[in-house]
């Protein structure tokens, strides 16, 4: 990582972390009911799906692509689960099928993007509708609720204040942090996200990597759908509608550049928590929903604005083009 940007990134993550700590302390002191363990565990539980999908979304965006279809994939996987469950399959058999279904959704995205060279935004806007639609085709207007208590309760079970599923998230998070920041694959992803042509000239299998990133994203959405379904004990075609924006918001708030090649997972995870904490605290403090949206928006902008204002200030004293020479930062 370049020195200047590294420090900026550090500043960015630092900012998010500081914000996280600040908000949390304020909430635990100022908002009663926040600090108590059942709320904490609920808070953690509530960000599970977003956290899961943010892991893969980060890789996808660092690779200069985007996947708007995750929430729909989640819905489709829910529908598959409900449908097969009604058909009487054992849940242990259904779950892997769901993961495969999710992976297939991702594979279709990946195929269209890497083999046909279509922009991922266009493709995933299309599959965003397609997968949600398929969910309705499969499960229609039914809601499947009689899911096995063993699993539904596991999904909400906690060890102390820590929900079981949060442990799952933690394990995966560690895995992804290592992949992105310490393996050849991670390097390749960053490189191809930053300059695809150069990466290709360096013998990196650009398309193959991109393809598998989409597959991973789909599978992860399916995994999230399992948590989601069991957590709410309800499989419906419209599960998780609108989550994609929440995920992307978290990833961007975490300091990942939408143009690829830049971003770190710790930052993203911090952002996911930050958004969760803010939501939870404000609702507890009886802040009206509209204000909630407003704050979320401000948070998003402010977190980026702060470091940039610094940069703008520095620009007064130094060259107009400082750092902007690689063409991306004008965005």
């Amino acid at each position, binding site marked *: *990582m*370049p*020195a*200047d*940007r*590294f420090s900026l990134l550090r500043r960015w993550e630092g900012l998010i972390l500081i914000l996280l700590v600040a908000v949390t302390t304020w909430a635990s002191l100022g908002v009663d009911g926040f600090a108590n363990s059942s709320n904490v565990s609920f808070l953690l539980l509530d960000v599970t799906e977003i956290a899961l999908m943010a892991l893969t979304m980060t890789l996808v965006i660092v690779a200069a692509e985007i996947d708007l279809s995750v929430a729909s994939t989640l819905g489709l996987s829910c529908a598959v689960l409900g449908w097969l469950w009604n058909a009487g399959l054992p849940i242990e058999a259904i779950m892997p099928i769901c993961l495969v279904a999710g992976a297939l959704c991702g594979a279709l995205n990946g195929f269209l993007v890497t083999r046909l060279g279509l922009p991922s935004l266009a493709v995933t806007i299309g599959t965003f509708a397609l997968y949600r639609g398929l969910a309705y085709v499969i499960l229609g207007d039914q809601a499947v609720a009689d899911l096995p208590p063993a699993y539904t309760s596991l999904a909400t079970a906690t060890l102390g204040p820590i929900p079981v599923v949060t442990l799952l998230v933690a394990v995966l998070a560690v895995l992804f942090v*290592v992949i992105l920041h*310490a*393996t*050849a694959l*991670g*390097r*390749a992803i*960053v*490189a191809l996200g*930053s*300059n695809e*042509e*150069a*990466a*290709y*000239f*360096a*013998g*990196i*299998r650009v398309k193959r990597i991109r393809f598998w990133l989409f597959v991973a994203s789909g599978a992860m959405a399916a995994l999230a759908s399992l948590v989601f379904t069991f957590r709410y004990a309800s499989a419906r075609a419209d599960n998780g509608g609108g989550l994609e924006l929440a995920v992307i918001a978290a990833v961007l708030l975490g300091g990942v550049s939408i143009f690829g*090649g*830049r971003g770190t997972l710790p930052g993203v995870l911090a952002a996911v928590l930050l958004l969760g904490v803010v939501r939870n605290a404000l609702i507890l403090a009886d802040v009206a929903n509209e204000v909630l949206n407003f704050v979320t928006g401000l948070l998003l902008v402010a977190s980026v604005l702060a470091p940039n204002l610094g940069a703008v200030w520095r620009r007064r004293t*130094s*060259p*107009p*083009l400082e750092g902007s*020479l*690689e063409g*991306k930062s004008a965005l």
Partner: protein
Amino acid sequence: MADSPPPVLALREVSKSFGAVRALREVSLSLIAGEALALAGENGAGKSTLVKILSGVHRPDAGRLLLDGEPVEFHGPADAQAAGVAVIYQEPTLFPDLTVAENIFMGRQPRGRLGRIDRRAMRAQAAALFTRLGVPLDPEQPARGLSIADQQLVEIAKALSRDARVLIMDEPTAALSGNEVTRLFGVARSLREQGCAVLFISHRLDEIFDLCQRVTTLRDGGHVADDRIADIIPDDLVRRMVGRELGALFPKQDAVPGEVALQVRRLTREGVFTDVSFEVRRGEIVALAGLVGAGRSEVARAVFGVDRWDAGSVQVGGRALRPGSPAASMALGLALVPEDRRQQGLVMELSIERNIALAGLAEVRHGPLISRAAERVRAADWAQRLQLRHRSLADAVDVLSGGNQQKVVLAKWLARQPSVLIVDEPTRGIDVATKAEVHRLLSELAVGGIAVLMISSELPEVLGMADRVLVMREGRLVAEIPRGTATEETVMAAATGIGGGGA
């Protein structure tokens, strides 16, 4: 020249640092109407930085900028342009999505009624410029896909179209071959005679001596000397730049050619090159010469697997190559140092060490994980061998000077210790001293049994280094000239198809 009119544009004790790097230290220089000034210096000496100050991109930390003797401050490139300064930057700055004509006239398009852009006039003027430069570029062609050389030519046309008072050219010839250079100089001279002040930067000394009247030399960002070209010989200039004596520039060692390492048979890529066959033996350095646009880079790209080919075959060490897969080619020991370092060679936002490691991630691994230590060692070793001028290996490559960026690309591929090395314009933008170093390296490698295919538009380099010279014209291989008979004349004749040569 106390009594002569004040310089059109001048720098006085100008300093500029980037963080810890002091790119310029109290440098002064004057651009005088009707005179061509050369700016000489090693890679990283501060030439481009100086250019960027003259063009309003950077603002000096200290010192003054004088326009017609009056202090001025440029707040941005727009100001400099308004003051009549036209610049050809070292790295092309084109708009890939727009046509060549629009690239040239962006912001200054000829207009008709209602401020409507007069496309016909624009096309005509662009065409006129190209005829003047003698290059057959289509004004309506999009800039995307232009070879680095063609881009450079568009940049030149852009600068000329501004009929400016000051024309600044930062290594405009780096990617060009003899013809374009002659042409360019012709135009530059006529401008100069019309009273335009010219600043010219190049690492090809002959060009400096050919075009300029005076030369200002920088070393480590400091001003070293001001000479009239008439008073010095190239060696003096080199001494001023490097600060020491320099041996022969092309210490080519002879090597006994071994068995065939790279064999290309009837390779064709429709619309780009046709029926290209040649072979390179271990220990051999084969040069691929030709005019800009002859399709040499395209051949290299196809052989390495970046572009697919429509017909023919490629064998490395007797094993057939899978088309369209650089990874596969690399597995067989092939390496390509591409011609466009910024687009194809480097990931600008990544650090020096990571760029060098990028082509050999498998080799810096430690179990499943990347070993930063191994990475650092690999980078440090080659940075040292190529005399890379850098602050820290953790810096982004985009803060490096042009030539030093080129060195990073070389390091990246040499570090792989390939068995067949294709280098496309390997010394583009590299200073004399290091160029000698690179040449020594190449011939060492050859002696060490590596097969080298070298694409170069710089004839002296070709003649100095090559055991055999292959010449391309219009996408076809038109001649093969052994070292013995390879001369400026024979090669140019083949390349241009005039006076014998090839078909």
